[in-house]
């Protein structure tokens, strides 16, 4: 693995303040390396989107960042904490360094402006010196990159199909050659044909441009196929992190295991699906100890009282970069 571009350290994100605060992301640390696709999976409501918005500070009210830092390693080796940036710095940092494709990419385009306007105004904001021509050329180039013909520049978003809009957003995210691209479930609403088209293009581009991707979804089968490393979230915490193959072949955390046995496979023999019994935890009243313990098939005595810490498991001679937070696998 190459060096880190984005380091999330002990990030805490809350909804609301004071007594009503809901701690949606708790003490999350995560490192995104250059050129890799890091997959983030987890149940609905486990805090994936919250993490993504939190680390770019785009979380709408009542979201607040209660603590932690997000260190960005710039190309020239300097580092900066996103959490301490002023509005100006933040604006300059966004899109040029870190671009984000939102969960509801369908709604991410302003319905009243043309695609061209929306693509060029980001370029203009970050490169005021550029000419209108050059900006338009760049927009054209990006559209071509995601496989949309340039004459679509003058379309309004509603004139595009869902898949095209999704691709416009992706093209727009890449327009300024950012070093990090965060994608939050960019394909949920799409059928598999279009989904495959889009993801295929991202992979191809990543190889050419060398950016890193943080890819968020709850669709594990997709993630296993698509990413280099996978982090599993449960109840606002990362519970396991491992290379995609390792996770798929041998997950350590019972929750990851449950997830992997919940989706039907299209090919091969029809296997028995076990699922995960119980329901997701209530963020307001988190279980003590390991948040997963009320649903865990392998629960044993420390789980209910002590919180497992994410770390490299002692018991597995796993490849580097595998961490887990489970009492089954005590950490170093």
């Amino acid at each position, binding site marked *: 693995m190459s060096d880190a571009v984005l380091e999330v350290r002990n990030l805490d994100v809350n909804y609301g303040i004071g007594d009503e605060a809901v701690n949606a992301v708790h003490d999350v640390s995560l490192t995104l390396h250059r050129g890799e696709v890091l997959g983030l999976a987890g149940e609905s409501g486990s805090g994936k989107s919250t993490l993504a918005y939190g680390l770019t500070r785009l979380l709408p009210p009542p979201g607040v960042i209660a603590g932690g830092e997000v260190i960005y390693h710039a190309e020239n080796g300097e580092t900066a904490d996103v959490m301490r940036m002023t509005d100006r710095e933040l604006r300059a940092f*966004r*899109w040029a360094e870190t671009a*984000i494709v939102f969960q509801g990419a369908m709604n991410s385009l302003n*319905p*009243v402006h043309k695609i061209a306007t929306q693509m060029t105004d980001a370029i203009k*904001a970050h490169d005021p010196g550029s000419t209108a021509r050059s900006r338009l050329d760049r927009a054209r180039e990006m559209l071509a990159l995601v496989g949309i013909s340039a004459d679509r520049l003058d379309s309004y978003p*509603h004139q595009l199909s869902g898949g095209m809009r999704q691709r416009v957003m992706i093209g727009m995210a890449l327009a300024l050659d950012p070093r990090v691209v965060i994608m939050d479930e960019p394909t949920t609403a799409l059928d598999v044909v279009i989904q495959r088209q889009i993801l295929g293009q991202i992979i191809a581009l990543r190889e050419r441009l060398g950016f890193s991707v943080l890819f968020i979804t709850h669709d594990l089968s997709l993630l296993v196929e698509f990413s280099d490393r996978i982090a599993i979230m449960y109840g606002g915490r990362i519970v396991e992190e491992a290379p995609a193959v390792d996770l798929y072949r041998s997950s350590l955390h019972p929750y990851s295991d449950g997830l992997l046995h919940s989706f039907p496979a299209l090919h091969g023999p029809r296997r028995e699906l076990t699922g995960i019994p119980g329901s997701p935890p209530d963020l307001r009243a988190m279980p003590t100890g390991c948040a997963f313990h009320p649903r865990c098939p392998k629960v044993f005595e420390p789980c209910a009282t002590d919180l497992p810490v994410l770390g490299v498991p002692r018991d597995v001679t796993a490849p580097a970069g595998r961490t887990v937070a489970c009492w089954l696998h005590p950490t170093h």
Partner: protein
Amino acid sequence: MSYLLKRIAFYLFTAWAAITINFFIPRLIPGDPVQSLITRMRGQITSDAVQSLYVLFGLNKGDSLVSQYVKYWGQLLRGDLGVSFTFFPSQVGEVIGQSLPWTLALVGLTTVIGFLIGTALGTLAGWRRGSWMDAVIPVTTFLSSIPYFWLGLIAIALFTGPDSVLPAAGGFDPGVVPSWTGGFIGSALLHGILPAVTILISCMSGWILSMRNMMVTVASEDYVTVAHAKGLPERRVMVRYAARNALLPNVSGFALSLGFIVGGTLLVEIVFSYPGLGYQLFQAVGTKDYPLMQGIFLIITLSVLLANFVADLAYMLLDPRTRREG
């Protein structure tokens, strides 16, 4: 039936119904223009005048209401609005013609300006939700709950008088003659200040409130967050992304309010003795000047319908989703 024909039929029906109501309702008022004139003069005209006035106004023929109605449509279709009783024998068209520009200038301009300022303030209030801008809302609601006439009269009492440059009444200085000269325009502007400010204060809060609520709603739309994520300057996000979309529902309200320019602010015109249409309408109602009333009602009807049409057009311009595909 095609959509366009349907629309046209709908507009025509509305116009017909409104005009018919406008024809019959005034005629249900007890008495007639002559009695009303005599009564209003309170002995200044001798009661012997009654007969001559009936003859003069042509009310001595005893036409039935229905035949009057038919005649009225005949006139209307010829573009003839009839003769006013109050200003007998001036043509209704002439009366309206000389009042309408004043109303359009004063109320029209202030409606537009009020909409613009209100929208701008509402944009800010919505954008800076939770800042001191929030205070704008209760203050403006307070101001807009005050009846126009009260505000106007207080303004006259406070800001006009021997020592003030602001005139208390009229559309322009008695000494000048309407023409496109600096003197007249300056005088007209000066006379417009107080009524305009009164209308502005009263009408702005509606725009502020609705714009603010829309802004709060729109500011949490994904595309606004995306605009932030793109690192666009704040002003651009606010104006081009949030406000531009928040504006849409306000547009139809604005168009409707354009239709109310003529009938809506009658009291301001009365209080400020402004030579506009609202004042004439009020007078016409008082004197049972049916032709003038009908003429003005007609103008109002047409302008509301026109405004509806404009609203459709504006919506189409502002919201590409409603434009013709392809």
